[in-house]
């Protein structure tokens, strides 16, 4: 079967360049909106799930799904830390586990509004568990048992009085900022201090959760099963990766639904535009189609040729859309994590999970926009097509 040379389509796109350009940018804008929403979702989801560790376990109170809801008494937490054989121990034989208090504290933002800042009270071993994941970038760690705090880098940019040497008042207790830290996970939006001092200052009892480093090869599923039904000290156990991934479900679902809805609706409009553009291209080339048909090209070849032309338009639109969305990569933004109602800072991320769906979407738009015009072109009768010239 003779195939219409691809160059023919390329040239014809170039000949009607103003129409091609407008169609491509139109599809591009649609693709860019979809890519933007997906990039937001990626930035948020990856911040949580990529940094979660499989060798760190999170213990929550049964029934709670985030540390904001969870709570243990100190005795309960101690029992969990001391009597769980799956928890690794340090050289001194101490279990590598730490009780953590988590409170969303209301603080002023630089721009004048208020925000819920995650404040975490930790015990000494939290740092040993975090290891390399946690880095002091300026100043030093707080001294245990003192009213000192360290502030995550992303948070330090967004709230006043968070520079080293400044004082932040939590409820009634002034805390001195002694360091800034960075971490691979969402912790960089947090403020950390000593567990006991935080519990007292914020008038809380006990702690929110227990984190622990697991021994190599620990069976988390078995541990979960056992502690869930424990009579003395029940707990809900997850690996940190499982926990952090679960934290992003609500917002991810919203963003993916929003992206899908917008893509669908805007896609309809883009397909209509594509059909228009192809129909006008075909009507301008009626005589050429007549010639092609009369020199022996099959209708099927004509159909493929025009469909390809439309797919090419879609592809160009996809590339333009991705280029339009690209500047978003790395742009920092903040939103509320609805699981804990605290503000999380993160950046838009253009990943393959953004680009691949965006380009596929653009190709689908091209196919849908081209099917019908291409079919119409292929059904022309050579004599009539030639006569209309």
């Amino acid at each position, binding site marked *: 079967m003779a195939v219409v040379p691809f160059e023919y389509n390329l040239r014809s796109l170039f000949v009607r360049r103003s129409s091609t350009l407008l169609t491509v940018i139109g599809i591009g804008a*649609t693709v860019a909106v979809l890519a933007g929403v997906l990039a*937001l979702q990626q930035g948020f989801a990856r911040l949580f799930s990529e940094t979660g560790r499989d060798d760190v376990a999170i213990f929550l109170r049964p029934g709670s799904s985030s540390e904001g*809801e969870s709570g243990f008494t100190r005795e309960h937490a101690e029992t969990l830390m001391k009597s769980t054989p799956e928890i690794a121990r340090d050289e001194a034989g101490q279990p590598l586990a730490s009780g953590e208090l988590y*409170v969303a504290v209301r603080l002023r933002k630089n721009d004048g509004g208020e*925000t819920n800042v995650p404040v975490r009270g930790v015990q000494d071993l939290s740092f040993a568990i975090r290891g390399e994941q946690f880095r002091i970038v300026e100043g030093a760690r707080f001294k245990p048992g003192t009213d000192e705090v360290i502030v995550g880098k992303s948070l330090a940019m967004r709230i006043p009085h968070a520079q080293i040497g400044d004082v932040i008042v939590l409820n009634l207790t002034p805390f001195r900022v002694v360091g800034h830290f960075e971490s691979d996970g969402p912790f960089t939006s947090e403020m950390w201090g000593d567990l006991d001092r935080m519990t007292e200052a914020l008038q809380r009892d006990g702690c929110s959760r227990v984190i622990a480093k697991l021994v190599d090869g620990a069976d988390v599923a078995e541990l979960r099963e056992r502690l869930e039904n424990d009579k003395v000290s029940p707990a809900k156990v997850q690996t940190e990766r499982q926990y952090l991934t679960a934290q992003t479900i609500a917002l991810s679902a919203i963003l993916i639904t929003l992206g899908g809805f917008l893509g669908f609706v805007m896609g309809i409009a883009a397909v209509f535009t594509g059909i228009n553009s192809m129909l006008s291209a075909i009507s301008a080339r009626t005589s050429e189609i007549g010639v092609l048909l009369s020199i022996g090209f099959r209708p099927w070849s004509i159909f493929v040729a025009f469909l390809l032309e439309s797919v090419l338009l879609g592809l160009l639109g996809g590339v333009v859309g991705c280029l339009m969305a690209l500047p978003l990569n790395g742009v920092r933004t903040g939103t509320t994590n609805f699981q804990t109602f605290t503000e999380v800072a993160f950046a838009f991320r253009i990943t393959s999970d953004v680009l691949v769906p965006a380009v596929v979407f653009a190709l689908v738009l091209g196919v849908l926009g081209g099917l019908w015009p291409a079919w119409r072109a292929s059904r022309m009768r050579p004599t009539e097509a030639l006569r209309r010239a």
Partner: protein
Amino acid sequence: MGSIPLGLLWQNLRRHWLRTGLTMASIVVAVFLVCFLRTLIVALNAGIEASANNRLWVQSAVSLFVDLPLSYQPRIASVPGVEETCKFQWFQGTYIEPSNFFAQFGVDAAALERMYPEMRLVEGSFAAFVANDQGCLTGSATAQRFGWKVGDVIELEGTIFPRPDRTPWTMRLEAIYDADNPNFDKTMFFFHHNYLQRALESGEALGNQGVGTYVVRIAPGADATTVMAGIDELYENGPQRVQTTTEAEFNRQFVSMLGNIPTFLRSIGGGVAFAILLAALNTMLMAGRERTRDFGIMKAIGFRDSTAFGLLLGESLLVCGIAGAIGLALYVGSAPVVATAISRMFPGYRATPETIATGAALALGVGLLAGIIPAWQAGRLRPVEALRQEG
């Protein structure tokens, strides 16, 4: 400007009915989408709109997630200007599945009716709700969502307040409320704070004994600012400082938690408008190119330049205007259905005149911008050149 032959304008539109139809369909979609997005942003602020100015909210100044002691309530009630107080404890129980989320509050049942004159009961009575310690009261939206009727027994699994024996919290639906103000939240679920408190005291349930927020009704004529200051002063030195705000301010803090989401929705709307402008411009340029010969003839037989200009601009405005009207009709017509579908996240979704005006302005703006370039080109056309061009 000479008069524009309307018959010709209409004929031109029909000449490429398919293209005109497709362009109009794109504009319909765009107008609908922009109106939809704008309504979402407005809906986010619905809570603020529905705020009453005689209600104040007392919460911890430290964190919304830290409870205030129960001992605060009588002291707050004694502040001059305070007429009544009511506990509001966030419960967050799970009804069958976590995705069935709705806001639940443990309240002083007896105070609720006077605190919320907006609530109009459509089933059951306040008296029955108050009389039953394990009774509950919910909004029409939530009742409809789960098909509840008065007398139904509702079981909630505790998350913040779990019960070690794994039994659910059990309540009987005593009344359903509705409200005339469209912005008033019809998804809330109220039950007796007593029921919660009793279980916590006896050890049947675990969790902090306290109250997240107290809502305060001020006496008619009392000055809200003075009352707020009076309440805040009580606990200036601890143990837990409080912050009293007007209801509007209280609701605003939840909106501000959304951070950049409204900006984000606005940028998407901008993207939609931009894409559609290009589509309309594309169509009008095609139309202009095709009519070159027509306009040449018209000018040759004595029509003015402005007639050609007006014909194309008029066509663009007409296409966008009709499409805009259809898009707006779609937006207004679908609003009740959409509102039901997204009532959980955007309880205040409804078509407003401001949004309709925005949609109309968008459609006509696109029509004007898309029409003006080809119209200008057509106006400047020299008849000789136009006629020389092949049709």
